[in-house]
């Protein structure tokens, strides 16, 4: 049985279309990532699947229950962590956790196994008010609260936004261990580097899913030659590359320029070409695509970039 099944979901707010016939399936015990920039429609999809928002059209079911007809069943079976920290800031860590346990008709003791690994990290601060916790600890507490009733499906809306690198890493480790307990996890993130930590990902933009696959397969499928160019004259190099006939796309990427070409070239050939027009180049190398490259490539096919 699919943990989440989405078919042709539409949603618009007035004139703004937030979701355009979205469809995907997510299996039990799978970490499924929704990857996309702000405004891609990720949170809207979360709100529909957690029964907070009604879709305009299409069908969706969570843990085998329809999100419109059987929303009451869903609420017992899912854990939701909204993008914004939304626990009681004026209650302590312990009070928050036992509050959410009680309203789901359970207790901390009953499901302690499930949250133990995470809760132990914040337990030394259990008397501290939730509002006084650091960002990383807040996320851990929110995850505990979302887990305390042993949900079948966990919805995490941008759980690592605004969290430091170490806490982000820890957070993903926790998700991996939850996956082993057969909890399906739908997670959204604007960070492309987190995509490779998911079993499968859906790349989203402007309310549409561009592609769904496992991150590994996406990299394999990416056929276009990709080069990383290192130069101190990023701007001139970019302008030149964008007007060059062999270029498919050229985008700044950290300290590199990522260049895709229409057909394979030798790295040296590109370096020579650039240096011939007077742009000093430190390095050109063929490189494996990251999810970000794939995302940018896919989003460009929809929207041609201006030179």
């Amino acid at each position, binding site marked *: 049985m699919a943990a989440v099944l989405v078919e042709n979901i539409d949603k618009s707010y007035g004139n703004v279309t937030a979701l355009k016939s979205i469809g995907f399936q997510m299996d039990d015990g799978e970490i499924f990532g929704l990857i996309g920039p702000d405004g891609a429609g990720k949170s809207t999809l979360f*709100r529909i699947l*957690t*029964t*907070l*928002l*009604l879709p305009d059209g299409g069908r969706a079911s969570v843990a085998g229950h329809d999100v419109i007809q059987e*929303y*009451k069943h869903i*609420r*017992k079976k*899912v854990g*939701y962590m*909204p993008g*914004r*920290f*939304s*626990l*009681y*800031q*004026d*209650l302590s860590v312990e*009070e928050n956790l036992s*509050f*959410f346990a*009680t*309203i*789901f*008709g359970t207790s901390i003791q009953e499901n302690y196994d499930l949250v133990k690994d995470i809760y132990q990290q914040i337990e030394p601060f259990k008397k501290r008010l939730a509002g006084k916790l650091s960002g990383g600890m807040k996320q851990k507490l929110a995850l505990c*609260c979302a887990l305390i009733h042993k949900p079948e499906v966990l919805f995490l809306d941008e759980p690592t936004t605004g969290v430091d690198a170490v806490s982000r890493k820890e957070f993903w480790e926790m998700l991996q261990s939850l996956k082993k307990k057969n909890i399906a996890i739908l997670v959204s993130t604007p960070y492309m580097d987190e995509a490779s930590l998911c079993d499968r990902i859906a790349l989203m933009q402007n309310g549409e899913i561009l592609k769904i696959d496992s991150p590994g397969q996406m990299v394999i499928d990416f056929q276009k030659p990709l080069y990383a160019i290192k130069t101190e004259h990023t701007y001139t190099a970019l302008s030149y590359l964008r007007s060059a006939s062999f270029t498919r796309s050229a985008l700044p990427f950290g300290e590199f320029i990522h260049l895709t070409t229409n057909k394979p070239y030798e790295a040296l050939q590109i370096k020579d070409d650039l240096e011939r027009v007077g742009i000093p180049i430190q390095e050109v190398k063929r490189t494996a695509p990251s999810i970000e490259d794939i995302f940018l490539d896919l989003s460009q096919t929809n929207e041609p970039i201006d030179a």
Partner: protein
Amino acid sequence: MQTLRYLIQKEFIQIFRNKALLPMMTALPIIQLIVLSNAASNDVKDVRLVMVDNDQSEISRALTQKIDANDRFTLVEVSFSHDTAFELMQRNKADIILEVPANFERDYHRKEAPKVQMLVNAINGQQATVGSGYLSNIIASLNKEIQPQLSQTIGSQMAAVEVSSNNWYNPELKYPHFMAPGILAELAALLTIVLSAMNVVREREIGTIEQINVTPIQKWEFILGKLVPFLCIGLVLVTVGLLASKLIFDIPVRGSLFLVFGYAIINLVCVLGLGLLISNFADTQQQAIFVAFFFVLIFILMCGLFTPIESMPKWAQYATIPNPLAHFISVTRKVLLKGSSFWDIRWEFIYTIILAVLFNVAAVWSYKKQQ
């Protein structure tokens, strides 16, 4: 039930943890009660009067003396000129001009029913009506004193109807006795309506309501979880307020306190329902407070605390029926001052119960867990 208990417990933890809220909920209303009960008095104590005596007779001088002797009046000036007197009123130095025409005494003895003129500064309506009432009384009593002297000389006896009045339930006309129970009712309603409206909207602003909405909590559990804690606060306020009124103003408690508290519970549930209803339609605390104030102001100004409901226009009198505050004030005054029984205030009970059911059902119904 377990869920509800925990919701209520959570609310109390939050209330007691809020350092600013607790004194605001207890000390401030008591201060208001004490200040307002003393200050909001309709008593007219000092009416400034100018006498224009164009007659200079025995009777007119007796009248002047009588007014001067009354402590409610201050005789600002006795003048001969209407213009001087008017000037004083214009400069706001006088409230009433009493003009005795020339030949007043002569006409009086000739039984021609001479007229004195009373000019009242009606900018302050209260001062004007009450002041002119007092003055009419003085003139009437003077009339009564000189009548027998006249009739003796003329030899005819007139029968007069004597009216003797007595102030029941508040014999000394102590204003705090009248105001304190009303103000107490007003404060309790005002506090609970604002607190409940703000509280739910705060959850919406902070985003905690999002988390609550994905849980299997029932709508009525959520609403009741908000209602009960604020009901308790309201009752504490009523208790402390009654105690303060008794100790400070020595207000009489003639009726049953059970009746007062029984009614207070229903009334607070009613206004809390309205507060929660407002909160369901507001997205921010600012919106909630403005809508709450819209209702609170209408309730206060039309509840009979400052202007008697009986002297309002007919439509406004009907408009007080859906005003829970009007019933609350009526009940506290009737039970405490008059010692009314349940049967005397049954209509207040009935109206309030209807309103309470309406507001609370609407609040549960309009609270949407799903958009």
